[in-house]
């Protein structure tokens, strides 16, 4: 198959259409999310609604930025595998507007729920400056905007590179935001020159995306999660937050590529062996995530310093509080379960089993974020039993499901305006030429 034939084959299935069933499911998920929010604000413990919004926010922001980051990582490493997943990962940029809206809502209205907001006078050291409300608000919104604008710049060149690889007439069938955004003014230009220019820009932007991601998400992790307990600090926390994002995004990528395999026409490009590669990558991220978890936990356990250990004991040991169940469940879901199952080749190659594992991984990361946020925000005082947590937890879970619904709907809208495979990418063509273009 020549390069041109391959491009035509990608475009033959037309603009991405996830199908009615998918849209309906997403709408249902959004309805659940709305119900969850309602539950949080009107039926839960104090601040249960804001807890749900903050949890949804940190996850949506993470997924939105990580999708593009994954693409940038493939560019940086010239990796030969995973090329067929690049575009799908990039489409998760659809989570960015969702995160931004949630952030604005939280900063504007939910700030009063922040535990340190009321008695900032108690704060010592740099915190007295760092956690001043105005500064904090500015940082949260600024970090999101910075990270997203760099990601969108990257996305622009990545999509434009594809449009530049596609002959003029074939572009016409596509419409949508991404097409209007990155496919402009190609007529009359030398497309190959334009494609090479975009590829050059991507080489420059990829490391910038990665660096900006590391810095902004470290800051977001500190500000949105760690600082909720202003006495506690951990140097690894930023890295622990962003590695969790990457892990969850990888799992979401696996699910979406499996569920939408047929509607998006991925069959020609993603074979069971590619799926197995993605599962291996998921396994690797599971291990790195576990490594970071362990490095943090072990150090705190050994040091046994009151300012550090209290945070962990409250969440894992304290029998008078309901948190420990969530903590241990989360550990099983993001580590034990995927670790054991992903050792098996059968799981890695089977769409059904892999999507189950991926769902468990995402719920593990959800619970990890929840257990970092909720104990500080919710007004649950000891002694409290597990049933005190039912309503707030359900609210947060449903809200997260709703966030996923909105995010995926927007992502699929984004995907409509671009080819589902990176047809302007030389490595994509090289890989598929070497593999002999199966089926």
């Amino acid at each position, binding site marked *: 198959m020549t390069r041109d034939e391959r491009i035509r084959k990608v475009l033959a299935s037309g603009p991405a259409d996830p199908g009615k069933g998918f849209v309906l499911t997403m709408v249902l998920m959004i309805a659940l999310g709305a119900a969850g929010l309602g539950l949080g604000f009107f039926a839960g413990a104090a601040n249960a609604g804001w807890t749900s919004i903050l949890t949804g926010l940190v996850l949506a922001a993470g997924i939105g930025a990580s999708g593009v980051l994954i693409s940038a990582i493939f560019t940086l*490493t010239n*990796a*030969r*595998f995973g090329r067929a997943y690049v575009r799908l990962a990039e489409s998760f940029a659809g989570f960015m507007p969702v995160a931004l809206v949630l952030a604005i809502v939280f900063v504007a209205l939910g700030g009063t729920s922040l535990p340190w907001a009321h008695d900032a006078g108690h*704060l*010592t*050291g*740099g*915190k007295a400056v*760092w956690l001043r409300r105005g500064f904090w608000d500015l940082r949260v919104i600024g970090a999101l905007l910075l990270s997203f604008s760099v990601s969108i710049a990257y996305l622009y060149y990545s999509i434009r590179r594809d449009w530049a690889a596609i002959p003029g007439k074939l572009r016409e069938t596509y419409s949508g935001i991404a097409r209007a955004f990155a496919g402009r003014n190609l007529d009359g230009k030398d497309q190959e020159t334009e494609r090479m220019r975009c590829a050059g820009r991507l080489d420059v932007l990829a*490391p910038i995306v990665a*660096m900006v991601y*590391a*810095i902004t998400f*470290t800051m977001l992790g*500190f500000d949105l999660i760690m600082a909720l307990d202003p006495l506690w*600090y*951990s*140097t*690894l*926390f*930023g*890295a622990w937050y962003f590695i969790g994002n990457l892990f969850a995004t990888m799992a979401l990528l696996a699910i979406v590529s499996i569920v939408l395999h047929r509607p998006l026409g991925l069959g020609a490009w993603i074979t069971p062996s590619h799926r197995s590669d993605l599962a291996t990558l998921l396994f690797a991220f599971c*291990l790195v995530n576990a*490594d*970071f978890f362990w*490095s*943090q936990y*072990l*150090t*705190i356990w*050994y*040091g*046994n*310093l009151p*300012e550090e250990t209290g945070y962990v004991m409250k969440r894992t040991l304290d029998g008078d509080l309901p948190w420990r169940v969530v903590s241990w469940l989360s550990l099983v879901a993001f580590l034990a379960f995927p670790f054991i199952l992903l050792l098996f080749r059968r799981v890695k190659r089977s769409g059904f089993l892999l999507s189950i594992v991926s769902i468990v991984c995402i719920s593990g990361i959800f619970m990890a974020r929840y257990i970092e946020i909720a104990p500080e925000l919710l007004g649950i005082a000891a002694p409290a039993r597990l049933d005190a947590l039912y309503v707030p937890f359900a609210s947060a879970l449903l809200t997260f499901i709703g966030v996923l619904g909105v995010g995926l709907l927007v992502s699929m809208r984004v995907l409509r305006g671009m080819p589902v495979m990176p047809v302007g990418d030389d490595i994509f063509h090289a890989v598929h030429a070497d593999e002999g273009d199966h089926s």
Partner: protein
Amino acid sequence: MTERVKPDIGAFSYREVDRDILATLGRPGKLYMALLAVCLLCVAIGAVSWVYLVLKGMGVTGLNNPVGWGLLITTFVFWVGIGHAGTLISAILYLLRVSWRTAIFRAAEASTIFAVATAGLFPLIHLGRLWVMYYIMPYPSGRELWPNFRSPLVWDVLAISTYLTVSAVFFFVGLVPDIAAVRDRTPPGIRKTLLKFLSLGWMGSGRQWKHYMAAYVFFAGLATPLVISVHSVVSWDFAMSIVPGWHTTIFAPYFVAGAILSGLAMVLTIVIPLRKAFRVEHIIRMYHLESMAKLLLFTSLIVGYAYGVEFFTAWYSGNVFEKAIFTYRPTGDYALPFWTMVICNTIVPLLFFIRKIRTNLITLFIISILVNIGMWFERYNIIVTSLSHEFLPHSWGVYRISLTEYGILIGSFGWFFLLFLSFIKILPAISVAEVKESMGFPPRKGGHA
């Protein structure tokens, strides 16, 4: 001096590659002998210093209260770190199917083993009475004493010895097909018989390759978490305590990144002269060196990130001890080591963002040496400053390195390069079988086998 050649070795034939790699085993030249003599001299200096230390006791070092860990432990951590690039390149990049590893992984693996073997000496030297070193091994003794497995120092013994064993196995298994290639090019004689023995009767048969390829993936799969655990465990030697500047959660990932940074720098330092001396520039290409430079830049950014986060947290936390140590490091008695570390590890590597610099042999070589120096000082900075400046002012004190310790440091470099120099003349420092594999199967265009 800049050369931009695509990683296309297809213009050569298997026969030529075989010839060029095996030519590296030829009769050594004058320069080689001179280097060998220098190494031997360094080893002698080290040996004399060690003997002196054993005879006189630990008093001949600069160690005293409050600094009980000084140059010896610094150098231990330094060499363990050097030993990380080899496994990274040979195992992790193998699993990720990164093509540029083939030409350099053998040299990197060898440097791993020799570095770990060098590192392993230091805890023994630091013991002073090294004849009781077996106390640390778990064996049923008449004293009914067992090592305390809750101590990170005992983990270290396990981790380092496991690492040495597994990398040696990985290394040897990788060598077997190449030893067979050397064997088949060697005229009958004692050398050939010896090689026959070492090659385990390797014939490249279907059965042998089948199990070999399967085993190789597992070795790589096991070595990957191992390499990460080793430097994590080394970092925990410090982080498990409550000493300010040591007890911090980021230590494990930060040490691993630092180890890879220093290891890559050392591999570059070794490989750049090696390819020139052996005239294998067509096999170890600028492309390989540039890829390593990029990876080095990446790990340097991680290390810079860790430095930054540590300072930020010290400021943010409001913990007076943290704040004190992080003010002491850049401004106190050890400001020079501190700034050497910062400049060499985080600022100088930024130059690799410029393509001209990372594709120039001279700048590559100079920067790799600077990073080596910077990484030694990083460990020095972490270990010594924290002990010098613990909680209470009455227990502060400054450490000065003694002449004996310098002697041992010099000896360790001599020992490492002595092992490496011997290796490259005994066995092929570039993998014959894998370079051939990376070329694609014959017949290829331009090949004239």
